[in-house]
């Protein structure tokens, strides 16, 4: 068995560590790039949402590197993500790829037995002992938590750093380095070192950087390729970024949702505007926008793929939230046709808007 999986932000670091620990062969598809998107758009239904298309690209690229099994997650709706696996299996089958799909759906949707059966498909392929397997899974968890943490710190530090670009450089070299290590223990060790390193980046607390909250559909905000690397650009502008949703958040949220204790702060914050679960992360989007204001953000950027059903609901609510909180909110919708020029112009103009509000100066520039 050789496993491949779709990209989703930093998850591949964790998946790699876990599979290395389990001793299972795997193929990490190339980081999401134009080619993956082109392949995906070509084979996917036109009106399908962007994550679906990029994932198809990932699968095919992974299969070309020898994978025979696709590992992915599901959901029980009501957003389209839950239906991905059904269509994706059909598409790959039609293309003549003979691959197995292992779909991790929530136990409550498919039943505990079925869930365990699917888990055993993975664990049976590993020659390691049960304890070693558990350790491999835990290492995967550690990796995703650490790398998301480091990223989070870098996203704040970039606004205050004395040597411009230092945080981004450390973040990039961290990712490059741990990807080349095949020993999970070593990866965890290096990540701890990098966490210390990023924490010790010298900063100037007199700086008053703009802080932007990133909210919206989880895939398009956590997978940098899909949002045209917006966070890289914000870091270059010396803007602090606050983004709650990340792969590690998703893991925690999914586990906590079994006892209905997930993201209480977000749910509470959204109650006034959207009290019910509507699928995807529509409610989280509204809640986070409210929290962003409380946490000192100057503005919020909402990102979602064209046609995303839950986010269309939240988009119609956000203008009211923005007015109530007196905080600008901008929505960016991405799909395979998104042109970089107009996209960047809007981001820059939004930052200008925030800058001018903050300094209350009609004509100053950053």
């Amino acid at each position, binding site marked *: 068995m050789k496993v491949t999986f779709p990209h989703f932000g930093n998850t591949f670091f964790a998946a790699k560590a876990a599979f290395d620990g389990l001793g299972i062969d795997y193929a990490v598809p190339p980081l999401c790039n134009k080619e993956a998107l082109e392949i995906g758009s070509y084979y996917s239904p036109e009106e399908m949402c962007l994550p679906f298309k990029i994932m198809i690209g990932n699968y095919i690229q992974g299969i070309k590197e020898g994978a025979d099994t696709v590992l992915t997650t599901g959901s029980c709706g009501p957003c389209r993500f839950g239906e991905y*696996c059904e269509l994706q299996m059909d598409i790959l089958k039609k293309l003549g790829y003979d691959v197995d799909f292992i779909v991790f759906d929530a136990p409550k949707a498919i039943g505990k037995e079925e869930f365990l059966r699917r888990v055993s498909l993975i664990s049976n392929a590993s020659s390691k002992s049960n304890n070693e397997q558990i350790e491999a899974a835990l290492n995967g968890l550690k990796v995703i938590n650490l790398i998301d943490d480091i990223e989070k710190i870098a996203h704040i530090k970039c606004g205050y750093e004395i040597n411009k670009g230092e945080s981004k450089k450390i973040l990039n070299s961290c990712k490059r380095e741990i990807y080349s290590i095949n020993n999970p223990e070593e990866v965890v060790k290096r990540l701890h070192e990098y966490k210390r390193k990023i924490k010790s980046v010298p900063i100037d607390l007199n700086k008053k950087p703009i802080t932007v909250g990133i909210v919206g559909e989880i895939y398009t905000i956590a997978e940098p390729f899909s949002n045209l690397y917006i966070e890289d650009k914000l870091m270059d502008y010396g803007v602090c970024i606050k983004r709650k949703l990340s792969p590690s958040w998703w893991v925690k949220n999914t586990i906590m949702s079994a006892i209905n204790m997930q993201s209480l702060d977000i749910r509470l914050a959204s109650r006034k*505007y959207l009290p019910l679960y509507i699928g995807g992360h529509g409610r989280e989007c509204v809640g986070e926008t409210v929290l962003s204001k409380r946490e000192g953000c100057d503005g919020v950027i909402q990102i979602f793929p064209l046609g995303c059903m839950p986010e269309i609901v939240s988009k119609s609510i956000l203008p009211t939230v923005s007015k109530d909180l007196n905080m600008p909110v901008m929505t960016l919708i991405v799909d395979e046709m998104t042109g970089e020029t107009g996209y960047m112009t809007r981001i820059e103009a939004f930052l200008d808007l925030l800058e001018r509000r903050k300094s209350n100066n009609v004509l100053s520039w950053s």
Partner: protein
Amino acid sequence: MKVGIPRALLYYKYNPFFETFYSELGCEIIESPETNKVILDYASKYCVDEACLPIKIFHGHVYYLKDKCDMILVPRIMRVNDKEYICPKFCGLPEMIENSIYDLPPITKTPIYANNKEKLLRWANREGGNITKNKIKIKRAFDNALREQEKYTCGVNDEGYKTKVVLAGHPYSVNDSFLNMNVIKKLNNLGIGVITEEFVSKDDINYEVDKLFKRPFWTFTKDTYGSTVYLADNRKVDGIVYVSSFGCGIDSVLIELIKNNVGDFPFLILKVDEHTGEVGFNTRIEAFSDMLLRRKLS
């Protein structure tokens, strides 16, 4: 008290319930007219651009009603069957409405779980409680409303046509003749009869759905997929005509699912939005009807 009922979305399926419920409580019912040009203009003006046409049209109907009644029914239908959903936009419909249209009378926001009677009664008690404190009256209105609903079937099953197609799509796409540009009449005029999913039995639907890897969690997908594939596979119809709105997330999955499972069975997809030109629309229907007739002859 005047209760406004927008003639849009699942009005076409569940109106008898709501209308009976409110009139038994002594309310005067104000229904918006069938969708028309004016309502469509409101629709595109007062709804987020990214929404699909049916949701926009619902906004248009609410706007039409807003100064004509004391409250408006905005049914937040969460589910009608166990473990199934309608669509995320239905779950957030009241929020979409109140953040897009200002100066509204009160709207109903209580979630509707119509998958069992007790849960539905909870909705009736909550919303009915805003009108009367008399619990017995509410219960009676509720029972009568359910009875009226059970008597009612929507949908079409034309008899006496040599050629027949299944008209697939969400209930409001199939039944709102403005939205679907009178597709049923146009097909009839071309000598084509129409059957809709309401005339396929639950067992037949389930039989088809169970063949899938994963049971669809949208009621629309389950019903439309199951009925369409059943009718096509068993050659009960000569073709499939699917009315779909641009930007409908569910359709982007559902159409693909049907396509993957009916092979080269004649399948016409009619995409509509507020700008669809009638000329092109008619051309496609006519061409499809020609194709069906030629297939029959050969």
